[in-house]
């Protein structure tokens, strides 16, 4: 960060120190995990079935418990990574501790809602 930015953020040394250790670690860990899992997801959805994407050929894959749970797990990891990333960006704008707590609660609620919404969307494909 440039010295000019540093001086204006006198109590905030970097994105690292504001967000806390676990979010920092898990962001990177989930990121690497996503590279692998998302690649697999992409491969299996695009090249695992023949023909254009239709309800039927999605059922072919998701009816297997392995793939249903894989998709839900992938979604959970991605949601964490996305919302944690959003949190880091917002924290850079500078928040009071109370506002940070409120934001964290909102993000948790949003994350759970997205996970439920995504899983709900997968259910009809279980065949």
């Amino acid at each position: 960060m440039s010295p000019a930015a540093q001086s204006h953020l006198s109590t905030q040394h970097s994105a690292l120190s504001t967000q806390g250790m676990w979010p920092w670690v898990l962001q990177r860990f989930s990121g690497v995990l996503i590279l692998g899992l998302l690649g697999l997801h992409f491969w299996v959805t695009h090249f695992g079935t023949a023909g254009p994407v239709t309800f039927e050929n999605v059922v072919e894959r998701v009816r297997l418990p392995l793939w249903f749970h894989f998709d839900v797990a992938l979604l959970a990891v991605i949601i964490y990574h996305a919302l944690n990333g959003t949190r880091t960006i917002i924290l850079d704008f500078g928040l009071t501790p109370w506002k940070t707590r409120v934001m964290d609660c909102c993000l948790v609620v949003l994350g759970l809602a997205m996970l439920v919404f995504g899983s709900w969307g997968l259910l009809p494909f279980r065949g």
Partner: protein
Amino acid sequence: MNGIIQNLFQDVVKNKKIGMWAWLLQRLTGVLLALYLFAHLTVISYSQRGAGPFDRLSLSIQTPGWYALDIALIVGIVFHGLNGIRIIAVEFGAMARAQKAWLFGMGAIGLVIVIFGVLGIVQKMMGHVS
């Protein structure tokens, strides 16, 4: 608040440091990909309306116009992912002297992946591959 944003962007705009471009683009692609996630989950949720509505929506987005956006999506994902690896490597202190080499090296790898992705999509469009 505006002072902080201004100063963070200073490194990108005024000082023109390429590393800060990477920082900016990492966040930008991240936000855009998060928005894509909302759209993707919404499309998938059409399954709840039945096979008919789902198929209609699904087939309507497998057209050339939407494929162009798919290519943009691939570019976004590849950039965000490889830049992320670069960030992790830099934070571990690796390649301290070769940061720019990493940046361009990752760029080269990214370009290769994107080309593969684009070729795959173009093939699909041409109907050569299912």
